[in-house]
């Protein structure tokens, strides 16, 4: 079976484990779920209807199987607080979260690649030491605090960027970029700190190898050796970790969306928690975790393009 098909099939058990964990987590909620969702003042007939709708009057296993069946049809139930299908709510907010996470990845790679490569080329120079110290500091600064500082600087003191909100890409690309710039920067710089250390270590490791000496001895210039040989090898571990970092970024969007008032999946999840709307919580968690699993898949598939030593037959 070709690798792509095998790897695609491997996503199914991961998503199943994630779905099961999400289902089970919300079964251990202390107290009566219907009362939690509708509040103590809810009428008994409303409570009864919700209990029937959620299947609370049936055994756990039956509920689980039914829930999986609905999940297979991408039916996540109807939100009590929004009175809308959860699938629609998730679909509306998905582009915001994806935009923030991808924007942050662009920032992370845009900073980490040049800084990491420059630091490795001048190992132990003041520039390298500054990059190492900067990355250590960058890892320590919480993304939401950096977000607040960016708001203080670029939305208050020097109001270049908007304080809150989001504009869809299709509606106005320039405004989309303006609204995304600060959130992507806040989220991306922390990941840039982690990636810079990795890029530096990977490039430094490759620079010491024999093939670099060979390439130089046959007369290739620095830039060519770096571009054609060193980076192609050094960037393979970077690609792996960058893919995993996207998972961090998806988690990070929960906080960043709150700081910048972005109507994404993270915000939906929090609104679900605040309103005790467990179907929203379930839907948002599933959507984010499934995206994480799919991203890991994409990273695996990208290896083939980056590393000719890996053949996926």
């Amino acid at each position, binding site marked *: 079976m070709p690798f792509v098909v095998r790897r695609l099939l491997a996503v199914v058990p991961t998503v199943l*484990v994630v779905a099961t964990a999400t289902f089970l*987590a*919300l079964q251990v909620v*202390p107290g009566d779920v219907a009362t939690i969702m509708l509040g103590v003042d809810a009428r008994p007939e409303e409570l009864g209807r919700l209990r029937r709708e959620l299947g609370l009057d049936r055994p756990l296993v039956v509920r689980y199987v039914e829930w999986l069946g609905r999940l297979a049809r991408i039916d996540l139930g109807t939100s009590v607080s929004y009175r809308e299908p959860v699938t629609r709510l998730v679909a509306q907010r998905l582009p915001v979260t994806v935009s923030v996470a991808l924007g942050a990845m662009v920032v992370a790679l845009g900073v980490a690649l040049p800084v990491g490569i420059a630091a490795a080329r*001048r*190992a132990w120079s003041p520039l390298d030491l500054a990059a190492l110290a900067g990355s250590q500091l960058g890892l*320590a600064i919480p993304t939401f605090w950096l977000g*607040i500082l960016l708001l203080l600087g670029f939305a208050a003191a020097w109001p270049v960027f908007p304080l809150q909100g989001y504009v869809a890409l299709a509606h106005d690309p320039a405004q989309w970029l303006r609204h995304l710039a600060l959130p992507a920067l806040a989220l991306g710089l922390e990941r840039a700190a982690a990636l810079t250390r990795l890029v530096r270590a990977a490039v430094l490791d490759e620079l010491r190898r024999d093939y670099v000496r060979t390439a130089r001895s046959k007369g290739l210039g620095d830039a060519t050796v770096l571009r054609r040989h060193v980076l192609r090898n050094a960037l393979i571990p970077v690609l792996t970790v960058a893919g995993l970092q996207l998972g961090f970024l998806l988690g990070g969007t929960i906080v960043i969306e709150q700081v910048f008032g972005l109507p994404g999946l993270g915000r939906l999840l929090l609104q679900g928690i605040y309103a005790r709307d467990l179907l929203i919580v379930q839907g948002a968690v599933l959507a984010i975790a499934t995206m994480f699993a799919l991203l890991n898949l994409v990273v695996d598939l990208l290896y083939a393009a980056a590393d000719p030593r890996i053949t996926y037959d």
Partner: protein
Amino acid sequence: MSTRPSALRLPLAPGSPAPPRRHRLNPPLVAGGALVATLVALALGAPLLAPYDPTAVDPAGRLTPPGGSHLLGTDRLGRDVASRVLHGGRVAMAVGATAVLIGAGAGVPLGLVAGYRGGTLDSLVMRVMDGLLAFPALLLAVMTIAALGPGHVQAMVAIGIVLIPIFARLSRAQALAVRHQEFVLAARALGAPEGRIVARHVLPNIAGPLVIQGTVAFSGAVLAEASLSYLGLGTQPPTPSWGGMLQEARDVLFIAWWMAIWPGVAVAAAVLGFNLLGDGLRDLLDPRLRGGAGQ
């Protein structure tokens, strides 16, 4: 071929700057250790050091800028920011320590037994751990809190659960590496029970990496607690927490900037301290990395 000095050749060429020689006293260990010791001392001494009661409301003195009797200013309820930052440190350290204890307390035995015994038990434990790792860490913590409800005890449990698979994987890998070594075989030949071999022989041999992981996990736990409290899911008001203080600052960002600075500095200092300490301990305890450049 160009004759100019090659930057690419630098790490290879004779006479090129070598990695700085590691001194017996490694700088990250000293800097991280000093920072952590200071923060722990400040947290422990907060009741003595804090000039005011961190929850005492003073409507007349609300949003006072830094200076005078309030060194770091006051918040919108007139509470002293310096006192709240100091007491917030106690919450951060308590949550960090408890979460690491939960994560290591459950993860290490699970990983040790899985790695040492192998077979079906190993597969079962590690599949569950892989399932937990299939969630982005913060999402798993938020989902746990969605189930348990907000609060700082719940935050400790949620962060602890996130740490379990990390400790389990590390302990399993380490246990796998030592289980066929001669000292383990010797103990088995002497008739020592399995439990005793794991506790008395395997565990002490893998303690180094676990201590390093514990230190790094502590910094992650402090950061996670701040994030959860910022989202209103961790420590609840009026108990001071660094994340909660930053959430309160968000609403008055443009008129009381000082509220948004000091709790953030405190989180960053704590995370930096524990990260540096972890790096330093890695240099000290892991001989494979000594003298290496690829840190």
